[in-house]
Structure formats: structure tokens, C-alpha cells
């Protein structure tokens, strides 16, 4: 099995580095699932690890591992495509590798501090050394600065290669979007006593990442993947990409307003947030249509030419990308729209409804396509011409998708109950919260969420097993 990790038929250095990022990403993905299970179990048995490894710690590591594994997989995916797109070897690759090791060392230290130190005293030192206590961007300030440095190195790799080689439409979008993505992180790197101001800028990072720049990133990856996996025409793919950029940024940037309904910000955000964010699902439908339409078109043309079989050159990767097209629309689009209007959001804000949306959208919009890119990386690592799914790949994608959907449905039901009982009926007081948390429907939903979490974990084990073995199996069949 170790031989299978080391095997590599990569034709360029960038892809080797990309694979290193993928390996760390999948480990962090596992950590995310374990922490999620601990936190889910604490909903059912509150005494579990009480005052030892509290919910706040498990939840912090859960969401931080999520963000970091996705950033790792995103960086890995970019290294996968640099040489393919620009036609030159990645510029400054040695520096890039150094950056990888620095980042990985920093992430390890940060996670160990989260787990073993947990909380600090109410001083600036805690913010600098332990964690910042701000959901999603908890990383302590020293790590923030480290992340900025490593991202600058990564950006240099991408930008210098772009300038040195071909400047395709895909790469142009990538370079511009990555600059915005990296720059936005700076908005989350300061302390203020004013909680409204704090959350105002906090959302600049979180929203403008996950509902604008990350989505454009996914569009760019999908464009690249469609060319590679089904041989889609570059002109068509790039035209779609520009349309997606237009619609994603057109709706997503001002859609930021839907986070400014209740944090002390003015009433006019109700209207801006509601109307712009209501348009956010539109590009997601477009992306879904685009992926499936192109696939059908290429397949049809191949049949027309009298070619036998499937045009897809990597069926597990393609399966995950189709799941992405659907999951992005369902998780980010539909589940997001459910509670984006202020008239609804005043009751759903800060309930399990948000958690339901969070689970399906992070999975549907990001996890899926990044796993697809990992399969693409494995294909390149083994020099397989046409990679086919096997039993493990199918179990992986089925169980993970089913598990996450199940968690989402369970949390949505818990959310409905919470919205109606705690918020609408009882007005969201301390007592109202506990009344809602202790109703049987809520507890049953949490139980199902935990069961579905276990299903997801089993799927994850299949996935890792498959990523480790599929390349070798396919290579053997090819010869």
C-alpha cells in the first residue's frame, strides 16, 4: 500500500506537489469527521467528555479541519492544473515545496494547541497564541501571518507560471479569483471591542469566500475537469465559465447582505441581502446544466463517430463532479434559499437550520469536486489512461453522499422544530432554547444525524481505501 502512495508517473513537478497537498487534505478530512461525530454524540449524551474535551473544542476542530482540508485540496488542485494550462513547468516549485512543509508544520501545531490547550485567559496573548475564538477563522494570529506568507508563495507559483506560459481563459479567471480569495483573508485579522464591527468584517471573509470566490474557484475547476475528463471543447467551457463568473459575482458579492440582517447593521440590508442572495442559486443551476449537457453532447458525438463505450476518462472523478453539480445546487442553492429572506430568517437565524444548510452546501459545493480532483491526481500519479470505478469507489461515493444527505434532512427537521417552538412560539429565551432542545422530535433528529454521521464515516473509509488502491488496480488492468 505504501508503494502505491509513492508510485508516481507525474510528468511535472507541480502535480507532485499537488498530490502532497491532497494527502494532507484527506487526513484532515478524516479528522473533521471524527470531531463531528464527537460533537454530534455530545448532543445526545451531554456528559460525554464533559470538562475534558467539551463541545466547543470538538466543534472548533471540526470546522477548522473542514476549512483547512478544503484549502489544502484547493491548492493541490491548482498545482495539478498549472502546467497543463500554461504549458510551462511551475515557476518557483522549490519555494512552493518549502511552503507546503511550513504550512503543514504550522497546521499541526495549531491543531495540537486547540486540542490540548483549548482555552486561554482573557488577554491579547490568547488571541495571538491559542485561538481567536471566531467561528471558522479561529487560527491564532501567528498562524494567520504564517498562512498569509505561504499563500503568497503559492500565489507567486501560480502567477509567475501564468505570466511565463499560455494565458488561457481558465487560468485568467483562476489568477484573478485567487487574488481576491487570498486578499479577503486579511479582513479577518484584527481585534475589536465592537461585536457588530467584528461580525461585519468576519462575514467579509466567510461569505465572500464560500458564496463568491470559492464558488468561482469551483466553476474554474469544473471547466478544467470537463476538458480533461470528457474532452469538452475549450471555447464552450470558457464561455460558460465567464457566464458563471458574471452570475456568481453578480449575485454573491452583494448577497453578503443576507448576513447583515440582525448584527446591528442598518435595515436597508434586508432588501439588498434578500434580493441579491435569492439570485445566488441561478448560476448553480447553470453549472448543473452545463456539466450534464456537455457530458451528453460529447458522448453523443462520440457515438456519432462510431466510437464504442464511455467518453469519460476517469469515471470516479466524473461521478464526484456530477455529484458536485447536483449537490452545489441542492445544498448551496435550495437549502440556502430556504432561509435567505429576512421574513423567514428572523426565525431561522442561529438554529439547526443553518447547520443543515452548512453541511449540505460545504459537501455539495466543495467536498465533492475536491474529491473528484483527488481521483484525477491518482490517475496522473499512476499514469492510467482510462480510470474506472470499482466496488470501493461506488461504496465511497454512495455512503458519503447518502450520509451527508441524511444528516442534512435530520438537521432540517431539528431546525424546523427549533424555529417553531423556540423562536416563533416562545421567543428565543434561555428557557425557550431548552424547551425546544428537549422535545422528542428534536432528540430523534439528533439521533438520526449521529447515525448518518457514522454512515458518512464508513463511506470515508471506503473512499480512502479506494484512493490508495484504485490507481494500482487500474494500472494492472491496463497492462
Amino acid at each position, binding site marked *: 500500500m505504501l508503494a502505491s502512495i509513492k508510485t508516481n508517473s507525474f510528468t511535472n513537478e507541480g502535480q507532485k506537489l499537488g498530490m502532497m497537498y491532497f494527502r494532507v487534505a484527506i487526513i484532515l478530512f478524516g479528522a473533521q469527521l471524527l470531531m463531528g461525530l464527537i460533537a454530534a454524540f455530545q448532543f445526545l449524551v451531554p456528559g460525554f467528555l464533559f470538562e475534558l474535551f467539551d463541545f466547543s473544542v470538538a466543534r472548533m476542530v471540526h470546522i477548522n479541519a473542514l476549512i483547512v482540508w478544503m484549502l489544502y485540496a484547493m491548492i493541490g488542485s491548482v498545482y495539478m492544473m498549472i502546467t497543463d494550462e500554461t504549458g510551462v513547468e511551475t515557476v518557483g516549485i522549490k519555494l512552493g515545496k518549502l511552503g507546503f512543509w511550513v504550512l503543514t508544520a504550522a497546521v499541526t501545531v495549531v491543531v495540537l494547541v486547540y486540542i490540548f490547550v483549548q482555552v486561554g485567559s482573557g488577554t491579547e496573548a490568547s488571541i495571538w497564541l491559542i485561538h481567536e475564538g471566531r467561528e471558522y477563522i479561529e487560527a491564532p494570529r501567528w498562524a494567520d501571518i504564517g498562512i498569509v506568507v505561504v499563500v503568497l508563495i503559492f500565489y507567486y507559483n501560480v502567477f509567475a507560471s501564468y505570466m511565463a506560459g499560455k494565458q488561457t481563459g481558465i487560468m485568467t479567471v483562476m489568477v484573478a479569483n485567487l487574488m481576491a480569495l487570498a486578499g479577503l483573508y486579511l479582513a479577518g485579522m484584527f481585534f475589536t471591542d465592537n461585536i457588530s464591527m467584528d461580525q461585519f468584517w468576519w462575514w467579509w471573509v466567510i461569505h465572500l469566500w464560500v458564496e463568491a470566490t470559492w464558488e468561482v474557484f469551483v466553476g474554474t475547476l469544473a471547466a478544467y475537469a470537463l476538458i480533461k475528463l470528457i474532452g469538452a471543447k475549450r471555447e464552450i467551457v470558457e464561455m460558460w465559465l465567464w457566464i458563471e463568473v458574471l452570475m456568481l459575482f453578480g449575485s454573491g458579492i452583494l448577497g453578503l447582505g443576507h448576513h447583515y440582517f440582525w448584527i446591528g447593521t442598518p435595515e436597508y440590508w434586508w432588501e439588498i441581502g434578500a*434580493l441579491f442572495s435569492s439570485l445566488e442559486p441561478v448560476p448553480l443551476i447553470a453549472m448543473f446544466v452545463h456539466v450534464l449537457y456537455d457530458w451528453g453532447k460529447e458522448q453523443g458525438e462520440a457515438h456519432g463517430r462510431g466510437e464504442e463505450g464511455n467518453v469519460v476518462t476517469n469515471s470516479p472523478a466524473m461521478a464526484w463532479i456530477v455529484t458536485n453539480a447536483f449537490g452545489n445546487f441542492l445544498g448551496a442553492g435550495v437549502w440556502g434559499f430556504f432561509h435567505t429572506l429576512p421574513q423567514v430568517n428572523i426565525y431561522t437565524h442561529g438554529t439547526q437550520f443553518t447547520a443543515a444548510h452548512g453541511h449540505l452546501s460545504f459537501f455539495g459545493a466543495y467536498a465533492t469536486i475536491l474529491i473528484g480532483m483527488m481521483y484525477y491526481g491518482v490517475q496522473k500519479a499512476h499514469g492510467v489512461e482510462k480510470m474506472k470505478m470499482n466496488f470501493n469507489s461506488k461504496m465511497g461515493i454512495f455512503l458519503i453522499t447518502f450520509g451527508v444527505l441524511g444528516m442534512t434532512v435530520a438537521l432540517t427537521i431539528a431546525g424546523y422544530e427549533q424555529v417553531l417552538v423556540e423562536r416563533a412560539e416562545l421567543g428565543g429565551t434561555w428557557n425557550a432554547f431548552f424547551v425546544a432542545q428537549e422535545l422528542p422530535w428534536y432528540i430523534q433528529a439528533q439521533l438520526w444525524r449521529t447515525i448518518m454521521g457514522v454512515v458518512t464515516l464508513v463511506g470515508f473509509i471506503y473512499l480512502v481505501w479506494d484512493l490508495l488502491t484504485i490507481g494500482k488496480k487500474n494500472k494492472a488492468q491496463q497492462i
Partner: protein
Amino acid sequence: MFFEPFTDVIPSFFGWLNQGPLTLTIFLHTVIILPMFWIYKQEKANLNK
């Protein structure tokens, strides 16, 4: 009662635009979309050349 008296805490330009039904968002969408007609016409002319 289409246009309501201003009720938000602090008066501002956007708050003022926000007094009618969807007036603020219609305004913003319009200023974003209108120039696209101009881009369309220019590109049409370019392609015809």
C-alpha cells in the same frame, strides 16, 4: 401606503432609497444591468466588422 416614513435608526442615502417597495434593490439591479446593453451593442458592432 407604498412609500413609508423613514424609520431606521440613522438616516442615510441607502436608507432613504429603501423606503418604497423594493426601490433600493431595483435601483441597484438596474444600474448593474443597464450598461450591459451598451456592452452588447459594442460587441455586436465588433462582430459585424
